[in-house]
């Protein structure tokens, strides 16, 4: 079928020549996505407060109660006995990253339902770049929350070595990337916002409790060998250990390998899931339209 006749006065305007995208354009796009995520976070004060209150409740109440019940022996990276509050702090950092990663997954499902996600996905930049930018934005917000928590914990008397606040940053970043990538993958599988409750029950809680976030793995092994194996198969276990060792300027290589590997795996799966020609998104009835 041939194109209808074009008005003579606009003939000179088309086709338009576009400048090729260079590094500068990619950085503008990345900055825009990160700024938007930060603005959204700042506008949702309740989200910030709840993200801070959750680990603080564990630190102030749960840890205080369990300090007397649960003894922590000397295990690496600790060289002396440590207070239970000190032991669970890396786990609570992981908890913030876990909830934040799932929160960003929730916001992607919400954005998809509300239509905001479309504005991102119709950008001319490659889909993989857009998704990684979105992840980086989510991780930036997560890390800000972790440091806000660490500041409050510091005033509560839970202190890491001063340099640890710096050396933990790469571990927080990598763990945050893994959890955001997982959240992104999950968001591609969830059809409706209502189904997100399942994520709480099947991902967040099992992921958190079946890990060394609250108690050392040797104690879990003593209590239940099966649960111990489940903990070893849980990527969050390695994220917590990576963070724990990083606070003391050490690298736990197995954890680093598992977290890096899982990040790549989840990210690749999320990119495929959001690919219009191969992914899950195409197979779903879209929302916001009639047909």
């Amino acid at each position: 079928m041939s194109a209808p006749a074009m008005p003579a006065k606009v003939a000179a305007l088309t086709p338009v020549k576009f400048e090729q995208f260079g590094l500068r354009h990619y950085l503008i796009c990345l900055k825009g996505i990160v700024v938007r995520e930060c603005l959204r976070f700042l506008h949702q004060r309740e989200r910030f407060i709840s993200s801070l209150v959750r680990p603080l409740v564990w630190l102030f109440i749960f840890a205080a109660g369990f300090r007397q019940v649960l003894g922590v022996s000397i295990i690496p990276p600790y060289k002396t006995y440590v207070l239970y509050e000190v032991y669970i702090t890396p786990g609570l950092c992981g908890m913030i990253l876990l909830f934040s990663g799932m929160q960003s997954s929730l916001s992607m499902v919400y954005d998809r339902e509300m239509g905001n996600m479309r504005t991102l996905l119709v950008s001319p930049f490659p889909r993989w770049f857009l998704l990684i930018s979105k992840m980086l934005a989510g991780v930036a917000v997560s890390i800000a929350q972790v440091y806000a928590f660490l500041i409050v914990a510091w005033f509560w008397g839970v202190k890491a070595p001063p340099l640890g606040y710096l050396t933990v940053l790469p571990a927080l970043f990598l763990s945050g990337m893994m959890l955001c990538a997982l959240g992104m993958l999950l968001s591609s599988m969830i059809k409706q916002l209502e189904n997100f409750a399942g994520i709480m029950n099947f991902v967040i809680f099992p992921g958190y409790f079946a890990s060394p976030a609250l108690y050392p793995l040797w104690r879990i092994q003593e209590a239940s060998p099966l649960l111990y194996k489940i903990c070893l198969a849980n990527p969050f276990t390695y994220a917590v250990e990576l963070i724990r060792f990083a606070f003391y300027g050490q690298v736990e290589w197995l954890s680093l390998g598992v977290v890096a590997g899982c990040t790549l795996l989840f990210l690749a799966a999320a990119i495929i899931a959001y690919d219009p020609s191969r992914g899950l998104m195409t197979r779903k009835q879209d929302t916001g339209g009639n047909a």
Partner: protein
Amino acid sequence: MQHVRTSGPGEEVAALDLAGISHSYGPKRALHDVSFSIAPGTFTVLLGLNGAGKTTLFSLISHLYGTRRGSIRIFGHDVSRASGEALRRVGIVFQARTLDLDLSVHQNLSYHASLHGIGGHQARQRIAALLDIVNMQGRQHDKARSLSGGQMRRIEIARALLHRPSLLLLDEATVGLDIQSRAGILATIRKLVETEGIGVLWATHLIDEVEDGDHVVVLRQGDLVATGKVADVVGTSGASSIRDAFSRLNRIETSGIAEMSP
């Protein structure tokens, strides 16, 4: 590798060229062998009742869905194989509201500009100019949440134009708006076609929005049932008006059409 179809001498590259597009959701067929073209700088109305396949078509053109059968080219660029080049030439206003309600008008527009690699001074300049065009000057710092439905649509139109697209897609852009807002938005878009030479694909089920000089594409339950100038479609279907033609093409009573009009 470039996936551009070049045109021969005297042959103009279509702003939008669809060839044999089919799409289904599982067993449910949404589009079947749809082919049509839009010339640059023309206003084309995509007519169809609810469920005709308009939104699916938009999702395919904007590469939200992959094209499984057929091809879609925007100014010669294949949407499947060179989606970036194709999408740079398109501005889209979706049927669902897509502004971030927690952000201000300026923040919403800046975000969109960045998604097209436009930043800093250039973005600020474009935003100011476009808010002027859509009569929303002075509202930059208002929260999107505080705007009326019509105002939000105007901002979405400004957003779709930020990266200087040559083709504008609007999916039921006037749905849910009062008559005055509808007329204002339609007039703005028609003026853009006239003054800026932008090609427009305007999807609607409201027959009142069609003018005599427009091109129309009529979809019925995923099938293309008519395409051409209004006069041609009216003549071919043996109808007395485009309203009558639309009614005949959709095999519905005229009273049914009347109900669709506001």
